[in-house]
């Protein structure tokens, strides 16, 4: 009997890596990719090496080292992580690999938890490497052993690109076997491959171009592409990756007479596209984000001199933004055939209160932002960065967010542009280790007169509490050196470094005042563990209550924005709910001493 289990897409992907005999795993957390390493790190029978690296570039290079030693390696990241890792990746395509290497890059159409929705398939085209684009969690798992073999066969890295709906989808998954035998590492000194001097790089570029056609031919024969020709059908539908299942569902439900080509790998299977084009009058290309398949289909049709209308993003039938679904396919059909189906009214006229995500009750970031704003005022400029604390936009202290590590460098640029207003930026501990360090070094070196606030909550919280170099343990919980942020900042030349407890409002505000006065790059490290990981680690604090006798109903505590503080409009009195974590900040904000520790 086959084993079937209900699992998260990323857990299925982790399983696929095991079934593919992975030996080295590195990555940097990023939604929607993080659970892959979280899952593999938790297994007890690990016969592979696994790490959270400090950033994606470093992770990529760790994976490259392993692959050059001849073992199978994977590097995981979110789509924008590949921008950070692009430097090694682009040249790796030239050098190639020995052991299979998979760059697992998870895309996020619709920006569910991202700053952009770039399409990683473009990177595959750019770097001239194969790309796998799964349509279901099951296919994702099944593709991975194949991707390793493919990478080894052509000695080239491959991209595996799940999207949010694959990674965070769930499905019944049929499991395969995990290999027991794995090769021993053996680094061969192939200097013409591993040393990318110009003379070697030129030859490797020639080689890379020479294997493009064999790669395309091999992928066209793979199980990830399939053509179902329907006799007599004038319409062809091409679905790529996850969009293919949405198109398929609509075609089956509506009983549409159409030939169907499912694409799951790139370069696209030219042979199959040509076969489809020869049998139909029109082809509808349904894919998320960039018109990558669509462009290829047009080129193929033109080269073959075929008069087929190609419908897709260029003529406005399919959106180039956001994710697609079955409804989007039906809307496309509506437009293509001009069906004039008016969308039926849905929903109600009820006015809803927005429910944006917010910082947790007791989150130290809220306290830090409160004091920051008190000291620097509303005229100051507040560049920020990427993490939970981006939600500080609700506190009025997040005014720029571009990419990982950019807060400090943008603050420097604002200062050097001649801005006279005070500049106070914020960055999390993990983001600082990721790419904030070089920005701080640059700010100090070039004498930027700014305040840098490191929101040190002792974990990479946003993506699910992964360790970073400041916490003292590795991905598998093994103890390791605990890198001191304060010593690091001092070593990089910061003339003012102060470590404070953000729950103590007076203490942190004194530090902010001194940092503001300081001429040069000042660093304030606001240290307090994340309330979620703190709770898990057993930190219990005494909770707070409001004394209704003393409450004057001024709402200062409510304005602080903690989800645990509510206001009873009838009694004109603040209340503290069960969400309270006992940080005590609201008690310090209250001018009437109405908020006190609850007696045990």
């Amino acid at each position, binding site marked *: 009997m086959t084993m*079937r*289990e*209900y699992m*998260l897409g990323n857990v299925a992907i982790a399983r696929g890596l095991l079934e593919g005999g992975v030996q080295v795993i590195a990555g940097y957390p990023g*939604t*929607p990719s993080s659970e892959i390493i979280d899952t593999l790190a938790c297994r007890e029978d690990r016969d592979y090496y696994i790490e959270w690296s400090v950033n994606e570039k470093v992770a990529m290079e760790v994976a490259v080292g392993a692959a050059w030693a001849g073992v199978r390696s994977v590097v995981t990241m979110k789509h924008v992580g590949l921008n950070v890792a692009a430097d090694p990746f682009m040249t790796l395509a030239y050098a190639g690999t020995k052991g299979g290497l998979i760059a697992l890059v998870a895309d996020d159409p619709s920006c*569910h*938890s991202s700053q952009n929705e770039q399409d990683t398939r473009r990177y595959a085209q750019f770097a001239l490497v194969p790309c796998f684009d799964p349509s*279901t969690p099951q296919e994702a798992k099944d593709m991975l052993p194949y991707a390793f073999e493919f990478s080894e066969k052509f000695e080239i890295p491959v991209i595996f690109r799940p999207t949010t*709906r694959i990674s*965070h*989808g*769930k*499905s*019944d998954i049929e499991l395969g076997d995990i290999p027991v035998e794995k090769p021993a590492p053996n680094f061969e000194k192939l200097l013409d491959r591993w040393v990318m001097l110009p003379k070697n790089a030129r030859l490797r570029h020639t080689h890379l171009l020479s294997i493009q056609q064999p790669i395309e031919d091999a992928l066209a024969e793979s199980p990830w592409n399939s053509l179902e020709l329907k006799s007599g059908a004038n319409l062809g539908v091409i679905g790529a990756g*996850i969009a293919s*299942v*949405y198109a*398929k*569902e*609509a075609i*089956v439900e509506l009983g549409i007479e159409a030939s169907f080509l499912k694409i799951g790998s790139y370069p696209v299977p030219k042979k199959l596209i040509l076969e489809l084009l020869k049998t139909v009058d029109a082809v509808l290309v349904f894919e998320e984000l960039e018109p990558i398949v669509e462009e290829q289909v047009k080129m193929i049709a033109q080269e073959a001199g075929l008069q087929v209308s190609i419908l897709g993003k260029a003529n406005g039938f399919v959106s180039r933004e956001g994710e697609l*679904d*079955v*409804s989007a396919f*039906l809307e496309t059909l509506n437009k293509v055939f001009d069906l004039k189906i008016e969308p*039926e009214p*849905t*929903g*109600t*006229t*009820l*006015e*809803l*209160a*927005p*429910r*944006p*995500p*917010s*910082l*947790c009750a007791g989150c130290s970031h809220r306290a830090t932002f409160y004091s920051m704003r008190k000291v620097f005022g509303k005229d100051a400029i507040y560049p920020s960065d990427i993490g*939970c604390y981006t*939600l500080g936009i*609700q506190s009025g202290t997040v005014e720029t967010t571009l990419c990982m590590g950019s807060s400090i460098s943008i603050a420097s640029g604002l200062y050097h542009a001649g801005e006279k207003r005070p500049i106070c930026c914020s960055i999390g501990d993990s983001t600082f280790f990721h790419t904030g360090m070089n920005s701080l070094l640059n700010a100090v070196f070039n004498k930027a007169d700014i305040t840098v606030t490191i929101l040190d909550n002792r974990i990479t919280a*946003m*993506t699910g509490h992964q360790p970073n170099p400041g916490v003292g343990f590795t991905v598998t919980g093994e103890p390791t050196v605990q890198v001191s942020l304060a010593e690091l900042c001092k070593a990089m030349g910061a003339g003012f470094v102060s470590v404070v407890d953000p729950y103590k409002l007076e203490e942190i505000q004194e530090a902010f005042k001194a940092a503001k006065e300081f001429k040069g790059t000042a660093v304030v490290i606001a240290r307090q563990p994340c309330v979620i990981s703190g709770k898990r680690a057993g930190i219990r604090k005494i909770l707070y209550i409001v004394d209704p006798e003393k409450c004057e109903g001024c709402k200062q505590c*409510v*304005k602080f*924005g903690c*989800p645990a*503080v*509510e*206001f009873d409009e009838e009694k004109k009195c603040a209340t503290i709910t069960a969400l309270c974590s006992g940080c005590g900040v609201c008690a310090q904000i209250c001018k009437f001493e109405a908020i006190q520790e609850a007696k045990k």
Partner: protein
Amino acid sequence: MSQVENNRKFDLLITGVGGQGAILASDIIGKSAVAAGLPIRAAETHGMAQRGGSVVNHIRIGEDLGSMIPKKGADLMLALEPMETVRYVEFLKDGGVIIVNTQPVIPVTVTSGLAKYPDVSEILDVLSEKYIVKAFNADELAFEAGSKLAMNVAMVGALSGYLPIPKETLLESIKALVPQKTIEVNIRAFEMGRRKVEES
């Protein structure tokens, strides 16, 4: 590709607020579907939306293609919070069933005075015009069963009569997925939720 008989297909939405246990509810159903030999697909909200934001899970029992329910495609909505029902009602088919927990979770936008929380009875009245609504306070029911934290399981109990999955299979999954110490409370919450809908 699609080989599942239509009568065993069931599209379900679970809506609510991050932290209410929508994912555990969906896992109970997913695990049970696999045990009952049915294919299943689900789509969940992770990441940013977890921080007290609005969440929606799509669950498709008997589906072997995509995990996303088309608009007006869901047979039933299990709403862990009343206002969140309305936010996703476009996914429910006309005449579909809504099982709703009437206990509101007030968002920060309301406590800070930026927005108003709609009247719960008004929400239920509006929804009843187009859908079959089964409403009760599942927080109180779970509290009666032994713990407010069992609210999500009480809601799964309320839903259980509609699922193409035997009750025993669901109970087995609950036992496997909830913490050992809380099994008894959760089973009680499940039964109380189930009775609540049977009686209505």
